């Protein structure tokens, strides 16, 4: 079935003289290039791009696409990534010309519908977060973290305080300490307890008036709600510090609890996760942030403002914000992602959002209850939207690693969970089924795990066996990097 010819590299398929487009003839009087562009600026040779007709481009990419596992075709319980169904209506609606063909510098009078949508989005995210002010500008969750920390830094500068530290649990995403570093903070790691929560003793030992922000992921990366979160927030606030909530796991708590209500001063959303993105093979995301009123003035500019006039509401971009940290990117934000997220939230409404969380948590707990006798879950028999199982026992008893299980799952047509994260769990398999999967799919996944753990270690070490490629040699890839195709070596 495989069309291996079509999946050669573009450059190998290229054939001189072929082309995939025809441009119109020039309909204005032409001036010679010599007159328009001084020779020192002009290209000396044609750009060495591939030369292909359109059918060949289609066949190439259509065949390549079949090498990908995706949500449309497979169960994809990739923990921490919230791989839920990507609604088709959202794609269609985000691609309406009146949404997708808007230039970022159009006069505001010509984009009132878009500004209303974005204003509504600000309002809805404020409500869902329990926080007052929202910026839709950050391009991804990591940039949301960075932006919020910049707001915090500006806030402390205004108070005349020089706080140097950011606290991050050891189970946190790597983006947290990385973001803190690029805002000039030193990161201190807070240990997790064996049960998977923030170690309160370690926190007490490290918390002082030099701490600007404690970045907490809640529910955390082992899939637990930090039951002490309010106490943690009170401790940090007492010393004048701020709480940042990494919103990666919002899917578990939509309409159940709100970061603002459990003490967060700032948070980001991951609309490509929580509000069904989609994920785009790695992106785009978006990273809107919500903050308390006192931090609102520091948010990036512009935000969307609404003026009530006798003729009805008029929406505009508000740049007049003297305390704002400025911009973190060009143009308004990842609007295409936000439009899809808007559609998602409007599709669900208040009850539907709560049901998202309920079913996500139900599915995760059901799956946990089915697999934990084979794959122990060190952090207990209950979870929120995801759980982290450990193959440590299997490894010591039979030599089967988390990686082996992950690779073998691919043979059975299921995407692997996230493996070896968080770093606090040995041989970690982080499973997030999401709410858009059935009991039957979860049962099938559990039964597949049972079957795999009964298979011979030798078979598993060599898995996957049925995928387009077997395990790649990552060592050579990193030792002798080949990062582009070159005519000489191929």
């Amino acid at each position, binding site marked *: 079935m495989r069309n291996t010819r079509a999946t050669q590299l573009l450059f190998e398929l290229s054939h001189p003289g072929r082309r995939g487009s025809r441009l119109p003839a020039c309909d204005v009087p032409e001036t010679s290039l010599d007159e328009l562009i001084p020779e020192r600026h002009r290209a000396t040779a044609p750009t060495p791009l591939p030369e292909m007709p359109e059918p060949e481009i289609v066949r190439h990419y259509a065949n390549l696409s079949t090498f990908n596992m*995706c949500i449309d075709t497979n169960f994809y319980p990739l923990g921490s990534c919230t791989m839920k169904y990507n609604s088709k209506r959202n794609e269609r609606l985000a691609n309406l010309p009146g949404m997708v063909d808007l230039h970022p510098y159009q006069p505001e009078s010509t984009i*009132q519908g878009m500004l209303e949508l974005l204003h509504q989005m600000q309002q809805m995210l404020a409500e869902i977060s329990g926080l007052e002010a929202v910026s839709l500008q950050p391009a991804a969750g990591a940039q949301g973290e960075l932006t919020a920390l910049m707001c915090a830094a500006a806030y402390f500068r205004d108070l005349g305080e020089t706080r140097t530290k950011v606290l991050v649990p050891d189970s946190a995403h790597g983006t947290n300490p990385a973001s803190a570093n690029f805002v000039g903070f030193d990161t201190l790691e807070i240990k997790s307890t064996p049960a998977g929560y923030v170690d309160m003793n370690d926190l007490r030992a490290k918390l002082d008036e030099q701490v600007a922000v404690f970045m907490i992921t809640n529910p955390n990366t082992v899939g637990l709600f930090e039951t002490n979160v309010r106490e943690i927030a009170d401790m940090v606030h007492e010393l004048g510090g701020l709480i940042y909530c990494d919103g990666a796991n919002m899917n578990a708590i939509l309409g159940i609890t709100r970061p603002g209500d459990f003490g967060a001063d700032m948070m980001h959303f991951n609309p490509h996760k929580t509000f069904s993105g989609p994920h785009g093979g790695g992106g785009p995301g978006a990273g809107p942030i919500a903050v308390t009123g006192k931090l609102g003035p520091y948010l990036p500019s512009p935000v969307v403002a609404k003026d009530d006039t006798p003729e009805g509401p008029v929406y505009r971009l508000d740049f007049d914000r003297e305390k704002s940290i400025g911009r973190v990117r060009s143009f308004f934000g990842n609007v295409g992602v936000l439009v899809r997220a808007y559609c998602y939230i409007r599709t669900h409404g208040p009850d539907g959002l709560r049901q998202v969380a309920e079913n996500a948590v139900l599915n995760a707990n059901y799956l946990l209850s089915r697999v934990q006798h084979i794959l122990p879950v060190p952090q207990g028999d209950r979870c929120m939207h995801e759980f982290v199982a450990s193959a440590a026992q299997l490894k010591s008893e039979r030599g089967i690693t988390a990686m082996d299980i992950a690779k073998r799952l691919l043979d059975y047509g299921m995407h692997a969970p996230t493996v070896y994260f968080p770093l606090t769990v040995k041989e970690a398999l982080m499973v997030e089924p999401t709410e858009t999967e059935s009991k039957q799919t979860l049962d099938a996944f559990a039964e597949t795990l049972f079957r795999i753990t009964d298979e011979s270690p030798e078979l598993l070490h060599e898995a996957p066996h049925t995928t387009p490629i077997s395990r790649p040699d990552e060592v050579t890839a990193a030792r002798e990097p080949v990062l582009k195709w070159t005519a000489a070596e191929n």
Partner: protein
Amino acid sequence: MAYFYNTPQDQAEMLKAIGVKSLEELFASIPAPLQLDRPLDVPPALGEIELTAHLQELAARNTPATANVSFLGGGSYDHFVPAVVDYVASRGEFYTSYTPYQAEVAQGNLQAMFEYQTLICQLTGMDVSNQSLYDGGSATAEAVLMSLAVTRREGRVVTIGSVHPEYRQTLKTYLTSLGVELVTVEASGGTCDLEQLARVVNDETACVVAQHPNFFGALEETDEIAKIAHDAGALFVVAFDPISLGVLKRPGDYGADIAIAEGQSLGTPMQYGGPYLGIMAAREKFVRRMPGRIAGQTVDRRGKRCWVLTLQTREQHIRRSKATSNICTNQGLFALRASVYLSALGPQGLREVAELCLQKAHYARGQLTGLERLEPAFASPVFKEFVVRDRQHDVDGLVRAALAEGIFAGVPLGTWYPELSDCLLVAVTERRTRQEIDQLVAALGDRASSSPSSAETASYA
């Protein structure tokens, strides 16, 4: 709800298997005082028909740039997007997959990324490309952070007034946090003041950031800028326009150390500013300081050629606070669109698009500055964008007059440059016809002078 499977009966069975009595019990770990005791105050749920009507209603209150005639630019352009680009990007296998953590079931994405990296190197003449960053503005900031790490200089970063103001604002925001001085060289003549540049670049300077063609559409003296930067041991970072490389020298050919771009021109719709594509390419020796994901070629256990994410130790999930950047996601779907776009154009197509932009922009500039009211603001050669000055000092009036004719005339520069508040930035892509350009000229000509200022309320419903 259309996306859920669980019926009440399913739920009951699953709760029983878990060993709890109710859904509420699953949330028992959330202390009761922290639980929301009311439904979220968001609008009620809409079915697909209602949602469609709602979005159509919102969309109807926008005027797509494609419904009007658009001369808007400044970093986002109405270039034509071939249907084949939409087709490939709308395949679920691409847009509903994620980061290729399991290379065995992500060869489609990984190969596409490897091809993208190659295409960007071919386009720019640079050695290595990453898998993309967010957009032009943040790519500028990332290139500067990379320069700080490469040169181990944290004293000064030098940019130019002709670099996109929003890229510079982004840069300023990033550098404020790090306490690095940002010096902006004047471009009052429309391009970099080279003498001033030479004066401010010192041995503490990590890099010089230029844009070519610059924000005003004009060509910078890149050889001179590169020399000034390199003589001081600083890197030369250039923001380029991908389409311009159909006619202009490539960044790798004029000494750029890091080349970045807003890649929206390569097959991504304008969508009110994002998501776009941050392109970044660099010299090979800097690859281990690059931000973002990178795909590399290797072989599998059977010796078959394949692709993986590589050099991952640069990244935040491994190096954490010492990572080269905090970036995690890429703009994979838009990198894919750029690849399809560049493949569809090929060398000949790219040259033709570039030449059409060039010729039409110059025709438009000639016609507009032939009007009594307008004059060229700068004398430098331009590519697809140029600045005109309104002798009557009423740019808003010009914009309104054009809008009344269904034309987006351009971007008023007063927003960022108070001294250019009488100036308009006009962009002309390959899509604009002579007739449309003539319409713009007419709208800004006699009719603009006589049109009432209330024209804004013209019929755009």
